[in-house]
């Protein structure tokens, strides 16, 4: 067909040319001028907002700098160095106060001659944690084992002094506790009981093995190796290394803060995984008890948990037990943290596509193996940012132990505010400024880390 011969269409739907005047080209938002128009001075409202913002910056930042840096006192030996009437100028932060209290902030009332032990623990922790944080460093498995398995035991021995003189292993009251004799701080009665309990456990494992689809030999071997690990740990805390005992009442400051936060995470991780698996179990009793446990601890404030652990728990245990104050707080924190950890892990388990479960089952894996080999490795990798966020929360929550009279970082500072040797008008602000900086550096650093990790995971999950 020849298109040229067709009549021009009646274009009634085309707007007449003069309906609207042509609009000018939109203002450019390129270049410095354009950028500042878009982000600073685009309209009257924008200008007002910018001015308001600048005003806020002006009234906050310069006074803070003036207080903490320019007007601050940097050296001196006592409160006189920080009194404006003594040194004849306006005084900002009183940093000599922090130097004077620095050892307390780091170690609490830990005996001065034994502080090297705390330093070793700090150093070991940093040395083991740093390579764990960077995904590129190899030997993750060994590293994680060292940090989560060996490090806590070593730290425990170093910090408390070890040599617990354990004397009853589950079989108290059977007459076995009367066996006398001890070697290098180890009581014979205890270790005889331990061996008997190991035998009993092996027998039970052999009996129950077929129910769980395993061989009797394998079950006994597994039980034996579990007990061997337990024995190693117990041996480490029971042996006399010649370290002086340091009671936890003497601990304090950053040491207590870190001990509580790290213990909370290390204990809550396995417990949380168990609870999360329990919550997704098909067995009604397991499922219900997991849900009740998780929801109970998540529903109450941490401070009630600490009070529960401090005042109620001792009543629930046989009268001959007296539990250390810090240990009580640790139990409370661990229970509380595992409930939150369980929810984080559950999120990871739910994010694993159903195909993974079905694939594992199609390969003939039993549910335990399926979880261990297929599901958990993927789920745990997904929830690392969540675990870090949990740790940030826990780190902030450790401050609560000062209410049950344990002196953490904040507690030590609060106690040192009452020191008359440093009573100056700016002591309080200096102390809060310093503690705030410490908390901020820890929490902000960790949150940045978790964000970076999230981004990385997000990228590696993309197809």
């Amino acid at each position, binding site marked *: 067909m020849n298109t040229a011969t067709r009549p021009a269409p009646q274009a009634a739907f085309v707007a007449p040319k003069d309906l609207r005047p042509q609009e000018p080209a939109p203002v450019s938002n390129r270049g410095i001028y354009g950028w500042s128009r878009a982000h600073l001075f685009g309209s009257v409202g924008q200008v007002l907002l910018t001015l308001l913002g600048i005003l806020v910056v002006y009234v906050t930042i310069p006074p803070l700098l003036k207080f903490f840096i320019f007007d601050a006192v940097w050296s001196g030996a006592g409160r006189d160095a920080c009194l404006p009437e003594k040194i004849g100028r306006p005084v900002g932060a009183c940093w000599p106060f922090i130097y004077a209290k620095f050892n307390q902030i780091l170690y609490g009332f830990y005996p001065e001659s034994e502080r090297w032990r705390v330093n070793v623990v700090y150093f070991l922790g940093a040395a083991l944690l740093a390579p764990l944080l960077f995904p590129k460093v190899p030997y993750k498995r060994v590293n994680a084992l060292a940090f989560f398995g060996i490090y806590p035991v070593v730290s425990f021995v170093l910090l408390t002094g070890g040599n617990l003189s354990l004397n009853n292993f589950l079989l108290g009251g059977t007459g076995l506790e009367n066996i006398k004799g001890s070697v290098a701080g180890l009581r014979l009665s205890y270790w005889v009981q331990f061996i008997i309990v190991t035998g009993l456990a092996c027998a039970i494992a052999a009996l129950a093995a077929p*129910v769980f*689809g395993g061989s009797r030999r394998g079950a006994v071997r597994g039980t034996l190796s579990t007990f061997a690990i337990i024995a190693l740990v117990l041996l480490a805390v029971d042996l006399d290394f010649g370290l002086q005992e340091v009671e936890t009442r003497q601990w304090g400051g950053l040491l207590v803060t870190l001990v509580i936060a790290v213990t909370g995470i290390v204990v809550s991780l396995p417990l949380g995984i168990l609870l999360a698996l329990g919550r997704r179990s098909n067995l009604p009793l397991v499922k219900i008890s997991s849900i009740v446990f998780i*929801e109970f601890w998540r529903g109450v404030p941490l401070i009630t948990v600490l009070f529960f652990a401090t005042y109620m728990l001792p009543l629930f245990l046989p009268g001959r037990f007296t539990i250390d104050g810090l240990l009580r707080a640790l139990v409370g924190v661990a229970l509380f943290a595992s409930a939150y950890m369980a929810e984080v892990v559950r999120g990871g388990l739910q994010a694993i596509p159903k195909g993974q479960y079905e694939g594992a089952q199609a390969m003939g894996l039993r549910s335990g193996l399926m979880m261990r080999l297929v599901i958990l490795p993927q789920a745990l990798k997904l929830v690392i940012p969540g675990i870090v966020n949990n740790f940030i929360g826990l780190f902030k929550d450790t401050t609560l132990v*000062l*209410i049950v009279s344990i002196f953490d970082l904040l507690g030590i500072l*609060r106690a040192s505010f009452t020191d008359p040797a440093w009573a100056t008008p700016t002591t309080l602000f200096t102390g809060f400024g310093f503690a705030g900086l410490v908390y901020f550096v820890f*929490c*902000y650093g960790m949150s940045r880390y978790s964000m970076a990790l999230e981004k990385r995971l997000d990228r590696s999950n993309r197809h």
Partner: protein
Amino acid sequence: MTDARWSEPAPTRRRWSWTDPALRSAVIQIALGIALIWLAWSFFANAQANLARQGIASGFGFLDNSAGFGITQTLIPYSESMSYGRAFLVGLLNTLLVAFLGIILATILGFLVGVARLSENVVIKALASAYVEVTRNLPPLFQILFWYLAVLAAMPNPRQSWGFGLQPLFNFLADTFAGIGLAPLGSMFRTLAGDVAGPSVFVNNRGLVVPRPVFESGFVWVVVAFFVAILASFLIGRWAKARQLATGQQFPVFWTGFGLIVGLPIVVCFALGVPVTLEKPALQGFNFVGGVRVIPEFVSLLLALSIYTAGFIAEIVRAGILAVSKGQTEAAKSLGLRSGPTLRLVVIPQAMRVIVPPLTSQYLNITKNSTLGVAVGYPDLFAIFAGTTLNQTGQAIEIIAITMAVYLTISILTSMLMGWYNKRVALVER
């Protein structure tokens, strides 16, 4: 063809097997059940033995005993001779008060900061980000102690209180109106300024002292007018919606309702000759007489909780708004909606679906974190009950159980409400 079919063998009774899943689950559950029962029983037995040894009577009878301690902030009448049960109630109300006000303040602040973080304006955006990072990364207890020990304790003593009054404002208004030629308004403000001579709000290291409103009998009608206005705006809203559905005509429901709810009580109030007077606090000796004193413990707890939680709420709000895809805004614009209705009808309803669940858990966090008031001595449920009462009676089990039960109840009620809301707003997927 039919012979090619193979027939399935008749189902035989399954033989008993060690690896039967039913047996396995029975074994696990029975073992867990026995362990739980053993744990509960040993806790119970140990507790009984320990209590008997310490000579503590168990039971809830102590709730009727006279408490014998004073409480610095009471919303209902309370005196030392009243029972522990009454003290519990006072504490519960104090907890609810600080939680309620904290929720309101944190929501307002959080929404403002959250929106500011999405602002085009880089200065505002940077400030909002700084606010979020600083407040979220400092422990709440640190913030409470900071406000209490460092800021509020640095206020002057009662005799040198900072006073604030409305007189300067009224004088300024009077001058302005007189200056621009509105003499009658000017003189009205001049007389008002005379009425409020002297400051009426005081700040000192014992807290905040504000005038106490004294209601006369006629004030009931103002309250009635308020509720009538709410009912009326509700009815107007329904009528306006029906009319819009029928005719397409819109009605300014919001402004009408706002005018009614604010205006009607004020009109009624003035019509009745203002049936409320303010009892102004006055300095007598070393302290203030009259007025209402807001204790510094309350102020520091409220400030710290709302500032801390607002940081989290800001992040939730930001995430919620970002979760609404840009296509929704563009589609709304291409339908011809102006930016106000686009926000109100398209963006906010969808953002709320994302915002509300984490927001509720933040509200719950405020309620739970209000227990931190015990560190500065704010008499909330926890401080009164698990603190003072526990010290006096020693009945740890009952008291901690009651305290935990209260917070647990609040949590469970909130999460049930949340579940109901989620079901209501859940996307209907096809």
